């Protein structure tokens, strides 16, 4: 997914002179082809996230569409005010790409765990938040992102994530997708929690339960209409996210259910609002926080 995202920036930039790439201090060789072939629109500006966001705002105010990339915690926490003031207040087409969203950087500890990125960005007016589930969806989204009005935060997963979305399905920012029709129980996902939900669905089908799966790649603005519609059909709703449950997908869905006076059961699966005290791998932490297909089955059955 990460590779596809960066490749697409290069492909899009070749065709569209408004597109520029801005990085801080990324891994050696990142987008080297872009740098070699389009050097006047490639900027690696150093470990200076605050500046990188302001510079990108300045470029956007002059007709460019900057795609900005660095590690998710740095592009959200370090320069939060620059995102609010320089990008969102001016409502500019800056695309902020956070590498390693969620628990990807498990071995690197709490400074690198982007568990609060979505919650943070959700508080900012004018911001759009997108977390696609795989490379196929990423490619479609990137093409759609070019002419989208206003700023976008794009959460990247680990890379090499299993492909679970259909190549034929059209992607539209702001839309959710009912991936499995199901009955009674609805699992709502974003980013790679779609993979987790789909595995859980297979396990549940074996037990005679066929849950609906609603994939919500755009967390803000959320597809309110669809959530209201499905809340009238499903008796139980569970949101699954690789992030803190205070402020993320579950909160966004919960706000809508509260407004519509939902009478069914509603559960948020995610990370508690506390710093991680473990390392290991992304999967180790997903198990630790009980965000696995097995855990989802357990919640649904219980």
């Amino acid at each position: 997914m990460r590779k596809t995202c960066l490749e697409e920036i290069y492909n899009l930039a070749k065709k569209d002179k408004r597109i520029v790439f801005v990085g801080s201090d990324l891994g050696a060789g990142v987008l080297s082809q872009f740098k070699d072939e389009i050097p006047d629109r490639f900027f690696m500006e150093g470990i200076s996230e605050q500046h990188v966001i302001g510079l990108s705002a300045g470029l956007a105010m002059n007709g460019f569409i900057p795609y900005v990339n660095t590690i998710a915690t740095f592009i959200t926490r370090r320069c939060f005010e620059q995102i609010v003031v320089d990008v969102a207040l001016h409502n500019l087409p800056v695309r902020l790409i956070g590498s390693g969203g969620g628990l990807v950087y498990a071995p690197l500890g709490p400074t690198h765990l982007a568990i609060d990125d979505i919650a943070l960005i959700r508080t900012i007016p004018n911001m759009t938040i997108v977390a696609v589930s795989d490379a196929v969806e990423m490619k479609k989204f990137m093409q759609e992102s070019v002419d989208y009005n206003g700023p976008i935060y794009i959460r990247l997963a680990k890379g090499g994530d299993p492909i679970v979305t259909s190549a034929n399905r059209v992607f539209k920012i702001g839309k959710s997708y009912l991936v499995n029709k199901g009955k009674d129980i609805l699992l709502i996902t974003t980013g790679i929690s779609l993979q987790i939900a789909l595995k859980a669905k297979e396990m549940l089908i074996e037990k005679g339960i066929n849950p609906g799966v609603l994939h919500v790649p755009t967390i803000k603005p959320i597809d309110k209409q669809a959530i209201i519609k499905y809340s009238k059909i499903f008796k139980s709703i569970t949101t699954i996210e690789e992030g803190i449950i205070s402020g993320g997908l579950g909160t966004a869905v919960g706000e809508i259910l509260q407004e519509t006076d939902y009478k069914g059961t509603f559960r948020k699966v995610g990370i508690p609002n506390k710093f991680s005290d473990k390392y290991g791998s992304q999967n180790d932490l997903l198990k630790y926080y009980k965000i696995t297909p097995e855990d989802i089955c357990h919640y649904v059955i219980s």
Partner: protein
Amino acid sequence: MLDKKSVEIRKKIVQAVKLSRRGHIASAFSIVEILRTLYEDILHVKPKNPSWENRDRFILSKGHGCLALYAVLANRGFFKESELETFCSFDSLLGGHPEYGKIPGVEASTGSLGHGLSIAVGFALAQKIKHGNSKTYVLISDGECNEGSTWEAVLSASKNKLDNLCVLIDCNKMQSYGFTKDISEIEPLRKKWESFNFDVKEVDGHNTGKLKKVIGKVFEKKKKPHAIICHTVKGKGISFMENNASWHHKSKISDEEIEKLYYSLSSRT
């Protein structure tokens, strides 16, 4: 010595705070001559077409000095002078910090310090990519040099050899709490900017003739971004406000104080 126009601009600023009874008056008085020079003699702008593609860009990074910007923009015809009197009122065009997309002539919303220079670097870089000739000017304060983000932007401007960028530093040696030397010493300021590979000049920031001369020639040197340290006095023009930290931001300004301000300015002409 302030000329008639400089006194008139300051009177407009006092008039602007008559309703709001608040504002960063001293911060505004510090930069009147710099802004006058820019808008009267330097910037290629079209007040009736503020988004003209080939205009020069100016960002007031020390957004709290906006009263001076508003008075100068109104004087140049970007909007009606009567707007000044609505400053900070509920429906006003003009708030306590300048807003982009709302106020004709304002190129970026500022107010939180340490942002304007990075945006200006983006503007200057955009001109480089487009091979455009428009210049970018940004006014920061010496206190703003406390911000780490300012120096991030300085590194980047220098690396990108933005010789189409001019950073004007309102060096009044004061900030909100008092004198900069007592809060966070920034001297030697010139050496700092030079060591970051800027072309640096110094000028009396209240002398419009000298300002015009220095700013007018600033882009002669190529391959380096430019900085002009403008030596100014916070509260310039009002004896009891000059170098007086309690006037950094004043609220609940009384009738008596308004009268004193007018009297003090009138006695200069």
